[in-house]
């Protein structure tokens, strides 16, 4: 068959989704001879500036290159640095394990809580880790709905980060109930007291928000993994590794790349993105209700839900940068995580960091404008009271640091971006510390005012969670594809359905 008749058959087919757009493009360039619309004369006088789309996969890498690159990480020999990091991470994680064993065997008094500060590091750490997770869902859900194609390079690792962050977060509320073996009382399971949970309490809402968040994040992650697991199944089978092939195949559900499957799969993926978007916004909103619904000055504010969500995304992107930049260097992923990706992440950090800075200012303004002396005292006390050191660490890390991302020179200095992302993480931990501890340490009755310091058990338990997180993340990068291969291929330039004219 000649090339001409093939084209004719193709053009006679009912219009495809992309072909309408292609026709429009032809009308502009005037290259299509059969264009039904006459070209407006004005267009000859217009000289549009070329605005090329950013290349998401550098150097025009082929589909096969992507598969080999991502699968190669799993199939290759375990690098030495992996074992070293894993051992260090496992050692650090043991701090959490030992801290919790000591806590359970002795009692919750081994933490530094004392009147009037009965919520402190446990809740700070919980809110901090949950917030970290939010960027993963933002990348996988909101950026998917907004068709931000650059998300494909980072979404798998960011979703893994979400899940592991939720694991670290869940440790703290579970153990701060005191008798952790009764933690199941949080869920409406019939118990011998015959009393049900109080659903008027935001703390109970939080149980549902966080457990839904964890579950849906795992489901979303798993659905994204299915096609990639199928690739690994076939590759391990061909390499003669039957056990690994069987294991990956078990979770791949027999995926065979059928387009009839892809059709349902894509629809399911969009719906999951659609429900994860209100989910991620609601989780930190409900976390903030834990504070906002109380009557304490400094907590009882309506700005909390949006402010917490912005802060969560800010800290989460800080963590994504902290994790992805070393991965990019270690696995030589510069063609997949390009400078454009780093720029995008820096700009979101800048935007959300600026929202957080605005919220800090607005809190002060409302404390003054609301003319409530207790509210006013709480905020003056935050900035100039006994915890002023924590407040100013927070301000410098969260308000000043992200502003540096305005400058292209800084965004292009990967090492510097990495360091700034650490500052963001530190700053957001201090934000939660400032909110929770300062309001409690100076409560209504001056005679009961106090100063909270963490105990050594608390300190080790918290820093150990970075080890827990790292152990999980290292296992992830060793055994699962760190980037969604199918999605990367779909955004590659050669995935287009039109031959080059």
């Amino acid at each position, binding site marked *: 068959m000649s090339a001409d008749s093939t084209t004719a058959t193709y053009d006679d087919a009912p219009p495809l989704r992309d072909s309408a757009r292609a026709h429009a493009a032809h009308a502009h360039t005037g290259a299509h001879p059969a264009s039904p619309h006459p070209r407006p004369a004005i267009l000859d006088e217009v000289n549009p500036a070329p605005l090329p789309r950013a290349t998401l996969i550098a150097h025009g890498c082929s589909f096969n290159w992507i598969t080999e690159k991502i699968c190669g990480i799993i199939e290759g020999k375990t690098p030495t640095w992996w074992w070293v990091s894993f051992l260090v991470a496992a050692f650090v994680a043991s701090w959490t394990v030992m801290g919790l064993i000591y806590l359970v065997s002795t009692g919750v008094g081994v933490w530094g809580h004392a009147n009037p500060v009965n919520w402190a590091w446990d809740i700070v750490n919980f809110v901090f880790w949950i917030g970290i997770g939010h960027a993963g869902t933002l990348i996988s859900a909101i950026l998917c709905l907004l068709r931000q194609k650059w998300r494909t390079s980072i979404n798998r690792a960011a979703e893994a980060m979400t899940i592991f962050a939720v694991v670290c977060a869940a440790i703290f509320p579970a153990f701060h109930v005191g008798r952790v073996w009764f933690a199941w009382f949080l869920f409406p399971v019939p118990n011998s007291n015959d009393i049900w949970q*109080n659903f008027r309490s935001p703390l109970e809402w939080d149980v549902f928000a966080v457990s839904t968040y964890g579950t849906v994040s795992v489901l979303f992650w798993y659905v994204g993994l299915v096609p990639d697991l199928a690739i690994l199944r076939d590759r391990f089978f061909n390499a003669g590794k039957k056990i690994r092939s069987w294991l990956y195949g078990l979770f791949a559900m027999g995926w065979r790349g059928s387009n009839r499957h892809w059709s*349902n799969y894509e629809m399911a993926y969009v719906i999951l993105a659609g429900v994860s978007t209100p989910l991620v916004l609601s989780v930190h909103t409900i976390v903030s209700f834990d504070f906002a619904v109380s009557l304490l000055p400094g907590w009882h504010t309506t700005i909390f839900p949006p402010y917490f969500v912005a802060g969560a995304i800010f800290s989460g992107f800080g963590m994504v940068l902290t994790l992805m930049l070393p991965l990019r260097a270690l696995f030589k992923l510069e063609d997949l995580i390009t400078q454009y990706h780093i720029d995008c992440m820096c700009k979101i950090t800048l935007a959300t960091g600026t929202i957080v800075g605005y919220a800090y200012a607005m809190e002060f303004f409302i404390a003054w404008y609301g003319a409530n002396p207790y509210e006013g005292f709480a905020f003056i006390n935050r900035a100039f009271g006994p915890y002023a050191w924590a407040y100013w660490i927070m301000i410098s890390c969260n308000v000043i640091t992200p502003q540096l991302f305005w400058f292209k020179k800084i965004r292009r200095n990967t090492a510097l971006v990495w360091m700034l992302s650490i500052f963001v993480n530190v700053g957001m931990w201090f934000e939660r510390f400032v909110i929770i501890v300062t309001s409690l340490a100076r409560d209504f009755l001056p005679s009961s005012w106090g100063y909270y310091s963490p105990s050594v058990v608390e300190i080790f338990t918290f820093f150990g969670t970075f080890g827990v997180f790292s152990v999980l993340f290292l296992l992830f990068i060793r055994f699962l594809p760190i980037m969604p291969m199918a999605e990367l291929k*779909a955004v590659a330039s050669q995935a287009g359905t039109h031959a080059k004219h």
Partner: protein
Amino acid sequence: MSAQPHALIATFDKTPDLMRAAALVRDAGYKNWDCITPFPVHGLDTAMGVERSRVPRISLAGGITGFCAGMAMIWFLNGHDYKLIVGGKPFFSPLFAFPVSYELTILFTAFATIIGMFVLNKLPMHYHPVLKYDQIHRGLDDRFFIVIENRDPKFDPAATRALLATAGGAHITELEE
């Protein structure tokens, strides 16, 4: 009648070739056929004549179930089975029941969507003739396949093979059951 192959599979190198071929197979009136692609190719659904996915209906049913389950659960637990007195607040109000019901809406929607997707795709199906094709790993990597099954009423080993060849398919192979 001699043993028919289960299906014929043809290979394509590039997405535009696959799209053209898919439109040809669709116009030839085949029903039991499929494309194997390493990633979702946009526009291929139209070229194949695949209808819009029915997953959203299942998701909607899941979401409605979740919301109603949340409201009913909270009414039963706090407003009916054990009337817990807290701060003079009503035993049941849809307002305080909303956040939990909202989360359950999302949870049930997510489960319904995923289960619905797998059920509609008839997965898990760990054994499938297509997976026995010795080049199938390329179909998840960088090649595109069209498979026409023998249960299609229009299937005829010679004519179908000719159609796939006309459409530009290479390495046309018979798949065993």
